[in-house]
């Protein structure tokens, strides 16, 4: 675990050593702020709970986009620049490397999520919302972020081209988003599998409404674990190619 934390610290700092990480985080926060003002608050009177619900609705979108963009470089850049050899020749396991990368990506997403707290806090100025709904929403956002970061880590482990990695990660996330639509046209048992896999529709929505759904937490944790396992497999495979 120490090696994972070492890798995570370096990669987390790496986001802020170049303008790139700052630019992505600033852009996502800007979009979040604009959407909160234009979409969640809007021009008409709304219940505070609806404002919060809509905040968590678009925040899910920006979190998923940020996850894919921020993670696409994690392995791809190291492969293209040859720095993966530092890890390859160190006495660390492939699982430790993958966990380190995941923790770095998830750390940035968590920071990004934390920086949006001022928006729900603004609701208190003219309205009243339950702290429980806010907490549940943020738990959902972090769980969703964890799963999509894991998808990003996996797609980044596939290729040395970070744009290809971003595209693959984006496509996979979209497929999980649209799983509920695919479930409508699929036959059993795939219909049940696709319905269960619906990232947003089935598993995230309850959190945005203030419900902490254990089944969905297990789903997000399983998805995170599964894609990290796939990433470890990919990474191990490179020594045999």
């Amino acid at each position: 675990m120490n090696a994972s934390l070492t890798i995570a610290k370096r990669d987390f700092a790496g986001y802020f050593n170049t303008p790139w990480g700052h630019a992505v985080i600033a852009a996502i926060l800007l979009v979040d702020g604009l959407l909160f003002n234009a979409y969640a608050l809007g021009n008409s009177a709304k219940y505070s709970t609806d404002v919060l619900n809509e905040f968590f609705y678009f925040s899910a979108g920006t979190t998923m986009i940020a996850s894919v963009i921020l993670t696409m470089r994690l392995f791809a850049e190291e492969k293209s620049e040859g720095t993966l050899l530092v890890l390859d020749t160190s006495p660390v396991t492939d699982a430790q490397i993958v966990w380190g990368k995941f923790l770095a990506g998830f750390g940035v997403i968590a920071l990004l999520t934390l920086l949006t707290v001022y928006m729900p806090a603004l609701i208190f100025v003219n309205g009243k919302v339950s702290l429980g709904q806010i907490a549940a929403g943020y738990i959902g956002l972090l769980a969703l972020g964890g799963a999509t970061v894991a998808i990003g880590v996996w797609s980044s482990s596939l290729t040395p081209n970070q744009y290809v990695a971003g595209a693959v990660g984006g496509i996979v996330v979209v497929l999980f988003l649209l799983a509920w639509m695919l479930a409508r046209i699929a036959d059993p048992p795939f219909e049940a599998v696709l319905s269960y896999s619906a990232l947003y529709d089935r598993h995230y929505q309850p959190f945005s409404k203030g419900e902490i759904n254990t089944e969905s937490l297990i789903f997000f944790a399983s998805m995170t674990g599964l894609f990290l396992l796939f990433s470890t497999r990919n990474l191990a495979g490179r020594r045999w190619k």
Partner: protein
Amino acid sequence: MIEVQGLSRYYGRHRAVDGLDFSIDSNQVVGFLGLNGAGKTTTLKVLAGVLMPTAGTVKIDGHDLNDAPIALRSQIGFLPETPPLHADMRVRDFLEYVAELRGMSAEATKARLGIVAEQTEITDVLDRVVSTLSHGYRKRVGIAQAILHQPKLVILDEPISGLDPAQIVEMRQIISGLAQDCTVLLSSHILAEVSQTCDRILVLSEGRIVADGTEAELSARVQGGAGIRLTVRGTTESVSATLDDNESVEKWNVEATNGDVLTLGVTLTGDHREAVVKALSDAGLGIRSLSGDDSELETVFLDLTRVEAT
């Protein structure tokens, strides 16, 4: 120290390394010599634990690559042809990161960093960002990261590629210094480099070892003798009287004369340089210089890689 048996490595259907067998003792500098595509880099990557062998075994300091890859990697420092440096980090931060990855404590890292920085002559750039360093300094930082954790084996892939003549001389000194503490394996396709730096040369061709020995041994194997060039003060007659019936000398000729100074090309029957020098000296000839014959070394290399591979 290093034991390799039946090592083969395929990339898909392409056979890059084919059944290598060799062993290397501690504190030797061993060079892998071969043309591009001979299998040098693949061999070094397998020894460094970056690639797994398709067949065969690799043991370093008793650790088997197949059974204990993590333990094996802890004994190794590796510098690939392009140093694996994070361009966005300061040199000091990068080296501390590498040390932490290799399980060194903060105190040990602090103590070792100064020694390694001095050894690789990077003390002046420790606080500079890697992206601002010249190629020569990047190579040195690359060596620093490879030796920071005091590995028993340091592997350097084409360590002088891209360096200017002054940097090459400095790099040779650094490599020679490394052998005091560990075994050094390096690869090159530059003959002079390998012959000047290494105690032993393994010549690779098409994934196989086609020759193994010192420069003189390899030369003797191909040509029946090692070539040297001597500059002596004396007469052709006295040289002739000394070398004509000398068992150490296969043939000799006068390549140039400058007054009473003669430049001799001498082919030895083996590595008998000391004996020849002593004979000439005993005959009253003044030895002014002795050097290896690089043109003959070129021939040896080409003969080994062309002929023995067929």
